[in-house]
Structures are given as C-alpha cells and as structure tokens.
C-alpha cells in the first residue's frame, strides 16, 4: 500500500508540473504583461517592466525561475495587482473550500437518501419522479440553473411579495461585516450550493440507485432476509453499507473535479474563490497567478484521485492495489 501510494505520488509530480508549465507558457505566448505600459508609450517604463520580469529569457527559463521560487514558498506576484500570489491563493481557496464542503455534504446526504429510496421502492411513483428529475438535473446547464435560481428564488419573490430583503442573497458569502456561521451565512450559501450541486446530486443518486439495486439482489441479502433479519436492518446494514463503497470512490473523483467546476458558480454569485480568481486572471493574462492556480488545483485533483483508489481498497479488501 505504502509503495503504491508513494509511486503514484512520485509519478503525479511531473504531470502537475508540466500542466502548470503549459499554462504559464500559453499565457506568456498570448499576453504581454507589459502591455499597459507599452500603451502609454513610456519606453523606459516598458524596459524596466521587461527587465524586472526578465522577459528576454526563454519561457522555460522564466518558468524554471518561478518554480524554483515556488518550492521555497514564493509564488511570485500577480502581474495585475502586484499582490503576492501565495497570499491570494489561500484566501481564494478558503471560499471555494466552503462552497465545495457544503455542496458535497448536502449532495451526499440527498443523493444517498434518494438512491436508496428509489432502489428499495423500485418502479414506484416516487422512483419514477426522482429518475425524471435526475435526467433533468444531468442535462441542466449549471449557469442557467444559477440564473433561474436567482430569478425564481431570490429577486423574483422579493418583487412579487414586496419584501424588504430577498430570502436568499446572491452576492458573496457574507454581507457587510458579518462573519462566521450564522443565518446570514446560510442565506448566502443556499443558491450557490444548489447551483454547484444540481448535476452531482443527479448523477450520484442515479449511481447510488444502481449500486443499491445490485447489492439488494445479492445472495447474502436474501440469506439475511430468509433468516428473519428485520427489513430495515437488511437495508441499512447489509445493503447500504456495501452499496456505499463504490459511491465513495465516485465522490472522491468528483470532489477533485469540483475545484475546476466552481468557476461558473463563483462567477454568477460573485464569490471571491478559486473560480473567480481564475476568470479574472485569465482575462488579464496573469501568468504567475494562473501557473500557481493550476499547480494547486492539479495537486488537489491528483490527491483526490489517489484517495479514491486507496479508499476503495481499504473499504473493499477484495480490491488489491498493485
């Protein structure tokens, strides 16, 4: 196990670094970080800017220098705001982690409940309803869902019922000076979390239903029933516990991917997380920020992929990692 994990980690390092280099290179190829100064026709300022960033060096050298600093904890400074990148990234990450944490928690509870119910009462009216809804959820473009949620759940009701405040807020995670876990925070969270999770709830609940159906038709479940174990206990102890194993690995894979998926949600709800940081840096051609962004998200994706595999083998001893 230890050999497996260390080998996987070792071989992920080049993938992460190459990915971040690609990003750095593409941005440097496309954008001129001194463009604003060039527009002002101040030749001295332009050459100062070029000298400071040492743009005459080949891109590989520039990236090598950045990476060398990065392993020492210095991720460079944003070419847009001149702020230190190692301060921007953790702040942005914190907002995104909150979104993803609540999103995953709620999706997991909802998806497991729906999946188990649908499997236990297969072909019931509610099963068909959930199935239909999950097809809708899978086909739903998240950004449109976000707009609909704002219109129908936040500003619409405010207009229709002439409220002072909308029920749910649509900008950021806190209003004004409030912080911490309070009602204000919850009212900010509801819509972004819904937007973020509409697709994963749909796909996880479908997955859980299929797994549960598989498990419930297994021989040991029939044996348990035959010897008179109460139905409830069969479903929870024999069924659910085994059906959860594959779902957990799917969840781990999706959590990694979610760090890329928060882009739409954070843009719509103006949340200053990793997604917003990515979009603004991309439109400004901010190479150091983007390279660091890819370094962080790629590491997280790789880590969660590894976690998925390890989890599977821990929870299901029949699976051997080689």
């Amino acid at each position, binding site marked *: 196990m230890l050999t497996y994990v260390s080998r996987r980690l070792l071989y992920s390092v080049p*993938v*992460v670094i*190459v*990915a971040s280099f*690609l*990003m750095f290179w*593409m*941005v440097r*190829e*496309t*954008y001129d970080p001194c463009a604003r100064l060039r527009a002002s026709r101040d030749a001295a300022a332009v050459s100062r800017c070029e000298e400071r960033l040492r743009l005459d060096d080949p891109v590989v050298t520039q990236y090598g220098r950045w990476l060398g600093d990065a392993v020492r904890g210095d991720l460079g400074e944003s070419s847009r705001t001149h702020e230190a990148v190692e301060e921007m990234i953790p702040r942005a990450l914190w907002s995104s982690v909150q979104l993803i944490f609540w999103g995953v928690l709620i999706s997991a509870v909802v998806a497991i409940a729906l999946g188990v119910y649908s499997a236990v009462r297969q072909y019931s009216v509610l099963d068909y309803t959930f199935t239909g809804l999950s*097809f*809708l959820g*899978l*086909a*739903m*473009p*998240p*950004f*449109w869902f976000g*707009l*609909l949620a*704002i*219109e129908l759940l*936040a*500003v*619409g009701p405010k*207009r229709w019922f002439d409220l002072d405040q909308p029920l749910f807020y649509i900008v950021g995670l806190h209003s004004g000076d409030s912080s911490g876990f309070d009602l204000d925070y919850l009212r900010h969270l509801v819509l972004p979390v819904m937007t973020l999770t509409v*697709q*994963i709830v749909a*796909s*996880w609940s479908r*997955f859980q239903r*299929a797994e549960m*159906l598989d498990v419930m038709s297994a021989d040991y479940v029939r044996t348990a029933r035959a010897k008179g174990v109460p139905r409830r206990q069969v479903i929870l102890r024999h069924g659910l516990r085994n059906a959860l194993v*594959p779902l957990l*690995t*799917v969840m781990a*894979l*999706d959590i990694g*991917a979610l760090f*890329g*998926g928060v*882009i*739409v949600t954070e*843009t719509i709800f103006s949340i200053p997380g990793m997604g917003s940081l*990515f*979009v603004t840096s*991309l*439109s400004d051609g901010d190479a150091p920020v*983007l390279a660091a962004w*890819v370094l962080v*998200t*790629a590491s997280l*994706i*790789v880590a969660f992929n590894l976690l998925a595999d390890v989890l599977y083998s821990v929870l299901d001893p029949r699976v051997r990692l080689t």
Partner: protein
Amino acid sequence: MSTRTPRDDDGLVEGPPRDAGPSGVIGAELLPSATGEFEAAAHAAPVARSQWALLRRRFFRHKLAVVSLGVLALIFVACFGADLFAPYSNTQQDLLLGPVSPRVGHWLGTDELGRDQLSRVLYAGQISLKVGLAVALISTFVGTAVGAIAGYAGRATDQVLMRVTDLFLVVPALAILALALDRFGNEDTTIILVLAGLFWMYAARVVRGQVMSIKEKEFVEAARASGASSTRIVVRHVLPNTVGPILVTATLGVALAIVTESTLSFLGFGVQPPETSWGNLLKDAEGTVGTSQAYLIYGPGLAILITVLAVNFVGDGLRDAFDPRSERRR
C-alpha cells in the same frame, strides 16, 4: 464536470456478433411488417441487414429515445431553416416597440432593442448545433483512431496516450480555449478545433478499452493465423465490434460540446458578438435577471436543456440497442 461511472467503460465487451447467423434472420422476420421497407430489406439482403434491423427494433422500443429523435429533428429543422421559420430576422430591431414580455407574435418576448427573442434563439441555435455536431464528429474520429492504435499496439503508444489524458484532466479546458481564441481569432473553426482537441480523449479511452479486450478474442487470433495484416485486423475485425460504444460516446459528445460551448460563451470566452450562440444570448440576458425583462433568460436556456436532454435520451436508446444486457438492469 459530469460523472462517469466505472461501468461506462466496460459496458459492451462482446458487441453484437458480426456474422449474422439464423438468429439475425429470425429477428428480421419478427419486425412489425407495417413498414414495407424492412421486409424488402430482409428479402433483398437478409444476412447483411438483419443485424441493423435488430438494432433498429431495439432502439425503437425505447419510446423516449424515439420521441427525442423527433424533437431533435424538429430543433434542427427550425434552427437551420430559420430563414423560413423564424418570425423575424435575428438582427431586425424595433426600437419603437422596445422590450415586451412574451405575447402572441413575440412568443418569447423581445429585448430592449425590440429584437424578437424566438428568432434570435433559432438563429443562435445554428452555431450551437454546428459546434456540437462538428466537435462530436471530429473528436470521435480522432479518438477512435488513437484509441484503436493505443489499444492494439499497446506498450509505448498506450503509455503516451494515457499520460496525455492525465495531463488534459488537470489543465482547465476554459484556459486552453480562451487563450487559443485570443491567439487565433474568434472563429467558429477555432472553437470547434479546440473543443475537439479536448474531447477526443473520451472516445480514445472507450475505444482503447474495447480494443484491448476484443484483440484477445478467438476470431482475432483466427484472422491473424490466416495471415491478415494488423491494419486489416483492426479495421475489419476489431473496430466493427466497437461501433456501439463509439456511437454512444459520439452522441453524448454532442451534448457535452453544446454545454461546454454555451458555458464558455456565457463566461465571455467563447463565441463573440456579433455572432450568437445560446450561451451568448444567456450572457446578454444575465443583466435582466431581477428586472421586468427577466423573461429573456427562459428561451435560450430551455433550448439548451431540451437539446441536451433529447441527445442524452437518444444516447440511452443507442446504448440499450447495442447492449441488450443493460436493458435488464434498468
């Protein structure tokens, strides 16, 4: 963004048997004889057609897939025949009219310049659908070629393919597309090529898995024993057995491409004005949320939702048609 279950890859290991034996002919005879075409086909070349007839029969049993196919046809005709069907031109302004909510004549309302939203949705569909189809076609073609080579040749080719796939999993597609558009101009062709360049890996992975299991089968061994070249074995013996998964992947690829394109355009990195896609229309309408013109967000969004839903159902129908075992699980 979407979740792929582990099962997706190994859904169709065996595939339909290629040499249509007596069973295929029997299947053809069981067809509803209302359509003379089937009967004629069965009589003309029973052995060659029967496999497809069986597939068609299984596909048409999937009611939702058939309905979806009809809906898709309708959407295509309406969008690409927009010159004939759209009530107004997509650019025709009516400043005196201004923004009006949905009503007879303006079924989805008009924007602040008095442009008819339904007509704009139909014209925008041309680009969205074109991107979706082209990306699916190109990426499936490339992915099939690469996947077949990697799966059959194995070793080094395979390793390279898998590493490249890993790499593209962690580099955000949005960045690649935005930068490519900035460099090569905001052409439809750029968007199509970049998206195809990102999506071919899905098809490649599916085909690779299929080819790896099929190449161990006896009939491949028999072909090799009788002196067939590797190219011939792959093209004539292995690939025809992967048609099912390839078709399903291509179908779902259309949906994925449409959603990705519209997401990018919504974020401002995709199709640029004056050209419009469904994503652009939603970007335009984003500012109306919370105002009395919020009706503008419904049309383009519904267009995407319905198209993607229909494409997914057709994909489901195809999967069931090619893999009868999956039907029992439903």
